[in-house]
């Protein structure tokens, strides 16, 4: 895993977003170089939701920020609706960035506490210009209602008067009112209670269907990502492991890390037996990532080759791309979708 390459990118007229060979590196606190993202490529078609999953430190948020040019990536290209944006600066970048909106994890701190909701949502439209005051307020109120807030009372209020879930609705309204090409959601439901999380996921799905919205959806919760995504990209330590359609990826993982993730999800069902831990140890440091495949230090099937040679992303079955020298293609029997329970590959658990 932890491989490079662009085999999974699509040459389609419908590609709205294409980030190619992204590298994000920065100076750590001790002056050492942190390799947050190393040669990651991602694309998204119009109306498609691409999910980005991985554990903390895998670089998923860094990818999102590099696409937003907040800040621009160390190297690599970002194409939005056919136009390269990674070299744009100043007003040219600001103009282009309108088409790229973002929703963050902490809904309360991402809203200005001293502004009223209607001003928070209208601000983007006002900065964009070209609309009369009446048009701005008409679009703002329509969006407030569309995201499920009370159209009579909500506009006059300030963020602290709302719960986390409602603040996330305000964030969605603020992003959607600008009619963006691409919406990037970085852990938008992680801070919410389960009952509210479902509301926000359903709302995002409605938005996606209504506006043919292209989304990059980042979360650490695999089930949440699967629920909203059409295609999923699994990342580990700054590299891509596996790319596939969301309905198949966790059913039949071909990368050992994807499989480990799928096996680790706690199922809310007492009849699903709890197996031994799929992975031992912790994530290695992105300051000194392992040679070859970055997953090899925790991979249950790692061989000598994995240390010597970095695997390239390649298509292992139609629409499925894996960066692994030894993909799990044949080991899975097609008639057992319960791959989480298959006992092989459980070597070396800690407890």
């Amino acid at each position, binding site marked *: 895993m932890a491989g490079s390459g662009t085999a999974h990118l699509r040459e389609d007229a419908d590609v709205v977003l294409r980030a190619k060979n992204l590298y994000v590196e920065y100076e750590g606190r001790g002056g050492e170089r942190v390799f947050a993202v190393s040669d990651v490529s991602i694309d998204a078609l119009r109306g498609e939701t691409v999910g980005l999953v991985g554990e903390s430190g895998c670089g998923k948020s860094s990818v999102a920020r590099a696409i937003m040019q907040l800040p621009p990536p160390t190297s690599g290209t970002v194409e939005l609706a056919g136009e390269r944006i990674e070299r744009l600066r100043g007003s040219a970048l600001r103009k282009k960035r309108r088409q790229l909106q973002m929703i963050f994890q902490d809904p309360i701190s991402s809203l200005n506490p001293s502004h009223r909701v209607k001003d928070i949502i209208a601000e983007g439209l006002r900065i964009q210009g070209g609309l009369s005051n009446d048009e701005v307020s008409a679009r703002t109120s329509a969006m407030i209602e569309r995201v499920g807030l009370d159209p009579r009372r909500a506009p006059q209020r300030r963020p602290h008067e709302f719960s986390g879930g409602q603040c996330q609705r305000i964030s969605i309204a603020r992003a959607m009112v600008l009619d963006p090409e691409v919406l990037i959601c970085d852990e938008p439901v992680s801070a919410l209670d389960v*009952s509210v999380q479902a509301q926000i996921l359903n709302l995002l799905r409605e938005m996606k269907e209504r506006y043919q919205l292209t989304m990059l959806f980042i979360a650490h919760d695999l089930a949440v990502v699967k629920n909203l995504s059409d295609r999923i990209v699994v990342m580990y330590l700054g590299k891509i492991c596996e790319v596939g359609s969301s309905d198949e990826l966790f059913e039949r993982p071909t990368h050992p890390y994807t499989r480990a993730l799928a096996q680790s999800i706690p199922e809310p069902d007492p009849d699903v037996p709890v197996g031994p831990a799929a992975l031992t140890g912790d994530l290695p440091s992105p300051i000194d990532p392992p040679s070859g495949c970055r997953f090899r230090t925790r991979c249950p099937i790692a061989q000598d080759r994995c240390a010597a040679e970095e695997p390239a992303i390649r298509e292992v079955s139609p629409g499925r791309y894996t960066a692994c020298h030894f993909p799990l293609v044949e080991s899975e029997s097609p008639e057992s979708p319960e791959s989480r329970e298959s006992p092989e590959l459980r070597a070396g658990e800690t407890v």
Partner: protein
Amino acid sequence: MTMQTTVGRGSNEGNQVGERMTREVLQVDNLRVWFHTPAGLVRAVDGVDLRVNQGETLGIVGESGSGKSVMARAIMKILPPNAEVLEGSRIVLDGRDLARVNPKKEKHLWGVDLAMVFQDPMTSLTPVMTVGRQLSETLRYHKKLGRVAARAEAVDLLRRVGIPEPAKRYNYYPHNLSGGMRQRVTIALAISCSPKLLIADEPTTALDVTVQHQILNLLQSLQESASMSMILVTHDLGVVAGRADHIAVMYAGRVVERAPTRQLFAHMRHPYTRALIDAIPRVGMPSQARLASIPGRPPVIIDPPPGCSFAPRCPSAQERCLKETPKLESGTDSPGHGTACFFPLGTAAGDEARRRNVEAGTTAAGAPVSPATVV
């Protein structure tokens, strides 16, 4: 499924029929904890009864504000100063009423018989001391071990919680360790004096999913080998499903449903429990599946009105639910299964209530109900 490869609670059902000697380690009766805040009196825990038997795990599940953590802290006697434990609340650990125990005199109860693991490992670790020293100091204080013996035992504890190279890690400071490793150290601290009851409050919420799996397995194996009792507090029904013998579901300071784990999942009685599980996206679901969400949000329990606190969001709510507060009661058919609901699911009254609300298109509390939202 292959039983050899599982560390799941295969003995679950055996325990439930009571073939094992059940000795109650913890009894909580009518626990009420109120907070005096500028906004008013918050009834964080409002009349909770619990039992934990020796060697068993009780899972406590609830959303934020349900009172689950306050309850755990009340048992540990680590509530903030503005909290008040009301008259009539009783917490009995292994036959000792904790209200009558003086923490100053009984220095070896908390930390020895009763230990806790928190969500953030740094709650229980000091950043200025090596993890080994924190462990051996605890052992020397509570178990009166000498310097050399304490060190040896501390290294052994680090090994037991799965820390590689324990003798080397002994000299590490918490900041030298990853989040998962730190949580292992706090678990080592918590089990260092072989507690009778371990309370784990969201022990894996801050951890990645693969590390969460390791830590939960660790807690379970330690618990089984020492026949320790455990309370696992979590917001995640998935975490307790495979790990707890019994589950108590909390909402707005009360236990709304309590049952042996399999019984609870097989026959959910309380509409909140049902709604909570239906709202969880699962990896086994097809993508783009619409989730059954619960309208509204958990209440803030300042001067709650009479009635069931879930009624405003409940698709079964009737007039009675708005006026009277239901008590946690077991049905005659399943004695160990308590539900605080006038119209439990799977009963004639419950089915009738749902049917009536679906027909009317609204609940007694005025929430819209459509056939699609109803399970």
